[in-house]
Every structure is written in C-alpha cells, then in structure tokens.
C-alpha cells in the first residue's frame, strides 16, 4: 500500500505534467500544491523549483509575495478575522484582541499545542454582515466577542455548544 506522502507527490507530479513543467504556470502550481499539502514548506518549494528548473529564490519570492500562500503548517482549527474596511469600522479589532487574550495566541500564529491558528484576511466580501469572523469553514456575521469565543471553544471541544 502506498503511503499518504507518496500519493500527494503523485498528485503534484500530475499537476506539474498538466502544466508541461512551464515556468509561467508557477502560480497555478503553487495553488494546487497548497490544496494537496495544505501548506507550502521549504522542501516542497525546493521540489517545485527543481521540477520547473527555476531558481529556488524565484519560487520562494513568488510564494512569499502573495498572502494567500501559507508557508507554515496551520493549526487543527483555523480562526480567520476579516480586517476589511467594513469590519474594521464595525469593531472587528476588539474581537480579535479578545480572541488573542483568551487563547493566548497572536495573529498569524498558532497555539503551542498546534490546535488553533489565528489568521487575518483583508476581506471575505460579506461586508453587509460586518464584522465577520470565520471559524473553520463557518462564517459568523454581525459577530461579537462572546459569540466568537464560545464558538471557538466549541470547535476545540472545550465546551458543549448550547443554542
């Protein structure tokens, strides 16, 4: 039986082949690689650089330029705060601070046990429902710090959600 890792490498190889190992498909390839592996670590970027025969500095440059690419392994659960204008005006900053304090976490980072990551995004486009916070895949609109913290505790399994 093939291991998970090999499987993922095979998938990546297929993507590379689809794009004919073309340098100008780098962005597409990084997108697909992130889908397959979840994030882009150094070994993976080196691998892509070798496969496309382009300098690692170029691959690293592109991967770090765009905020959508994750270079570190995200936590088991991911909380994303929308720091778009509409959400900022509606006070998302206060919610983010409360989350940081409650779970002892900094935006952009993860908790030491790797269970929770806190990220920011520049707009998820649900501005009419501002402020919005995304917990795993669920969008919480017109969010308050109480709702968000309760929701995070629920996904972490710390409390049973009663509603």
């Amino acid at each position: 039986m093939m291991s998970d890792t090999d499987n993922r490498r095979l998938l990546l190889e297929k993507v590379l082949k689809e794009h004919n190992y073309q340098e100008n498909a780098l962005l597409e390839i990084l997108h697909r690689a992130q889908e397959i592996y979840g994030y882009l670590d150094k070994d993976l970027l080196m691998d892509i650089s070798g496969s496309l025969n382009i300098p690692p500095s170029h691959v690293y440059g592109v991967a770090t330029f765009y905020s959508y690419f994750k270079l570190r392994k995200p936590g088991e659960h991911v909380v994303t705060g929308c720091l778009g204008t509409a959400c900022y005006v509606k006070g998302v900053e206060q919610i983010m601070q409360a989350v940081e304090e409650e779970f002892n976490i900094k935006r952009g980072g993860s908790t030491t046990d790797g269970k929770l990551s806190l990220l920011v995004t520049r707009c998820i486009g649900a501005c009419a429902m501002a402020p919005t916070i995304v917990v795993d895949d669920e969008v919480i609109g017109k969010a308050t710090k109480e709702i968000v913290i309760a929701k995070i505790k629920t996904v972490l399994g710390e409390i049973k959600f009663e509603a």
Partner: protein
Amino acid sequence: MKLDDLQRVAEQEVDFQRAYKHRINVCCSSGCVPFGALKVLKAFEDAVKEFGVEKECKVARTGCIGTCSVGPAVLVEPGDYLYQSVTPEKVREIVRDHIVLGLPVKEMLYQNQAYFQKQHRLVLRNAGKIDPLRIQDYISAGGYSAIAKCLATLTPQGVIYEVRTSGLRGRGGAGFSTGQKWALVARAQNSPKYIVANLDEGDPGVFANRTLAEADPHAIIEGMLIAAYAVGAAKGYIYIRSEYPLAIQTLQKAIAQAKSMSLLGENILEMGFKFDLELRFGAGAFVAGEETAILASVEGRRAMPRPRPPYPANSGLWKKPTLIQNVETLANIPLIVQNGGLWFSKLGTSKCTGTKCFSLTGQINNPGLIEVPMGITLREVVFDIGGGVPDGKKFKAVLVGGPSGGCLPDTLLELPIDYDSLTKVGAIMGSGGIVVLDEKSCMVDTAKFFTEFCVEESCGKCTPCRAGLARVKEIFDGITMGTGKMEDISTLEKSGVFIRDASLCGLGQTAPNPVLTTLRYFKGEYLQHIVEKKCEAGKCFKNEKEA
C-alpha cells in the same frame, strides 16, 4: 449551435418559464449563503412539493438581490415581492399564504422601497432574476444576442464605434475611455492579442465584481467575446481572487456551458470567429489590480508593476497587445451593442455616462450592493438609499474609493459621484467602495488603518511608496500613542504629496489620499490628538498591548 438556434433556445426557454405562474428566486450568493440560503432553497423546494404546487411555481437559485444586510433574501415573481431574513421555518408560511392562497406575507416583506427607487440596475440587470448556473436563463433574458448581432451585422470597427459613442469609461478605477482603449489594441500590429478581465477586487470592503460574477457570469463572458471580436483577440483570461470560491465555481460552470453550446471555442455560432477563455487565480495581492502587475501575475510572477510606456495595448501579456478591462466594464458591453452607443451616452452625466456599482457599508442602516446612475449625489446614496446612520448617531464622513480613496465630510454631501468630481475633492472612484463613518469614528485612526493597509500591500519596488508610506505610518503611530508633535502635520502633508507624485503605480499614487483628505477636512482632530492628547472616539492613546 448556429445563429438561428440561439433565437430558438431563447423562445423555448421563455415558453418553459411562462408555464409557471410564480417564480421564487432565492439569493444564493456569498452574502446570503453563510446565513443559511441553501437551507432556505431546499425548504422552498420541499414546500412547493408538499403543497402540490411544483408545476405552477418554479423555485430558482439566483445571485444577489441586493439587500445583503437582511439575508437570506427571497424574491417572489410576479410582482417583485421581496422577503427578508427568510429562515427554513418561515418558508412553509410563504408558500402556503403567498403561492397557494395569493396573500403575500406582509410582515416578512422588505419594507424599505427607497432602497431601490434611486437605483438603476443595468450591469446588475439579471442579478437576482436569473439562475446563474443555467445558460438558458441568460439566453432567454436576451443574452448572447449582442455577440450574435456583432457577428452577423457589425464589423469590428463598427463595434468600437458604438463603444466610443457610448462614452463608457473603465470601471476599474482610473476611468480611461473604453472605446479609445479598444481602438488602441485593435490598431496594434503584433499578434496574437489577448484580453484580461480583472476580477481581482482587492479592495477590502468591496464586493461588486464578485456579486456580478456570482449572479450573472455570462454577461462577463459575452462582454469579453464582443471585446475580442472588436480588437481581434483569440484568447482571454479572467483573473479572479482565490478568496472567491463561489464566483470561481460559477464562472467555471458558465464557461463549460458556453463551450458546450459553441459560444466559446473554435467556431463560435458557426460564424468563423474563435475565442477561448481560461480562469487565472490571484493569490491575495492588492497591487495585482494594477494593469501591468496583473500581467506579471498571469505570467506566473510576482505582481509588481513596471513603468509605462510601453502600454499593455502594445506590449502586454508575453509582450503581445493586450486589452485589460474590469469585469463591470465588460458587463456593460452587451447592452451597448444591443441598444446602441447613443442610448448609453444619455445615461448618467455627459462626461461620465452609465451607472456604477457600489458596495455600501460601514455605519449605515441599509448596507448592500447598489447600482446608481453616475452623477447621483453622495447624500442620495448615503441617506436616501442607505437610510442614514443607525442608532440616532450623527453622520461624520464617507469614504469613497477603498483604502486609497478619500474621507469626505458632510459639507461635501451634495457632490455628484463621477470620476472628475471625486478627483477634485481628493477621493477616487476606485473600484466602488463607499464606507460610512459615524460620529464615534476617529479620522486619525481611520487614516492610520488605511496607511497600514497600503504599507503591507506595497510591492516594494519603488522607494516613495515603500519607504515613504512606512514613514507616514510611524508618524501616525506617534500621534495615536501620544508623542505627536506639531510639525508632524506638515511632514504628513509634504510626504503625502511627495508619495503621490513620485510613485510608480496607482497604488502609491493614491495611497496618501486618506491622509491628505483627513488633513484637509478634519485637521481639528489631528490637532486635538497632538495638542490635547485627546481622542473623542476613544480609539487612540491605548497602551501597546491594547492597541
């Protein structure tokens, strides 16, 4: 599919839809889905079966209806009855009373008629009315008849003439004449030629392009087809944000449908015209909206702008002539071809024709996606459509044009919204963000927030933008932490003007707008922060940990 078949498909579809007495449109766009729209859709499908009215009542999944703050929104036709905040539990009542008994459920209806009265929905003509995942819906609403008209009766020059006559200007922000741009690309000698549709809406707080793609993807595709025919391009890309999964899926399906009906591909409508279309995904870079940066990104590189000339019209993608157009601009094109450039030129104002979509957000009663004629005043948008500021608070400022737009005070509320009037007062049209701020907002903090955004999004290529904005941010840090000095004000003014004048691309050239406009219209607040160390809104002067 041939030219005549298109007419046949349209007629068949109209007959098919007429067979239903009622149509229930459930908004399933990104604004409503997180709040349960898909469950509401399923509940309607179940309820019409339960009441045995599925043969006379069609339940359709549509795009944005426009009232995003009271989602999920549901529109019942005929009569355009708009239900707000619909939950699966309320669905049975609507079907029973409205569809079966013919008595609309008044207490659930959206009451605010003023929200729609001053709007003029051209680009969003089909939004909330058609099922974006069914190409037949678009065709029955007159879709693809404009490209058919071009292929059958107009020369490429004839199309460009109509677009020129229409006075349409690019909706991406800069407002360059669309007809003139097309003529430049058409005249360029090199080949092949490309078209890039910009759907990278990087402005935080703006969702007009996303909504358009989710609600009416074929309008974008048809606009690109017409543009391709006019300038002689055979290949196009839609550059879309990765953060828009629903818009991506919708466009992917629309492209596949158009291909299967030979509306895209080798021999379109069997008229010997060839055009192929692909999606390209952005990855979260505000600067990628700049036209030379978007090209770099499509080519798989960092989205860094380069000096112009050469302009993309002559040397764009892979150094070939390239037409770059915002998707909102493109969605206007089928209407212009259908009704003529002259018709379009009479909409809006004489120098600024047509309509503009705005994402209306912030401290306002009716946030949502609106489309208004050019020349409408800010007051009409904020108070008549937007319903003013909630909770009895006072209006303070309106931010027009996204993070590099301007903060305008109440004395400018009578200003007509068009490219030139906005530029005159220090704002920009941008991609159409309007954010309303109430009396509890701190203008210094707001300007600092946008500056921070631009510092992060600066690509770092040119010094004024990279180093200048970082310095401006440091000054803001000082002012909001209580170490501001009087000379900071003149330093901010000088730096702002310098960054504006010396930066390479639109990002740096417009980034100082929030700083310069707040200094111009709200200088008192800066002085209060510096001299009295006081922030009336209570946003500043918190220690590091809190801030």
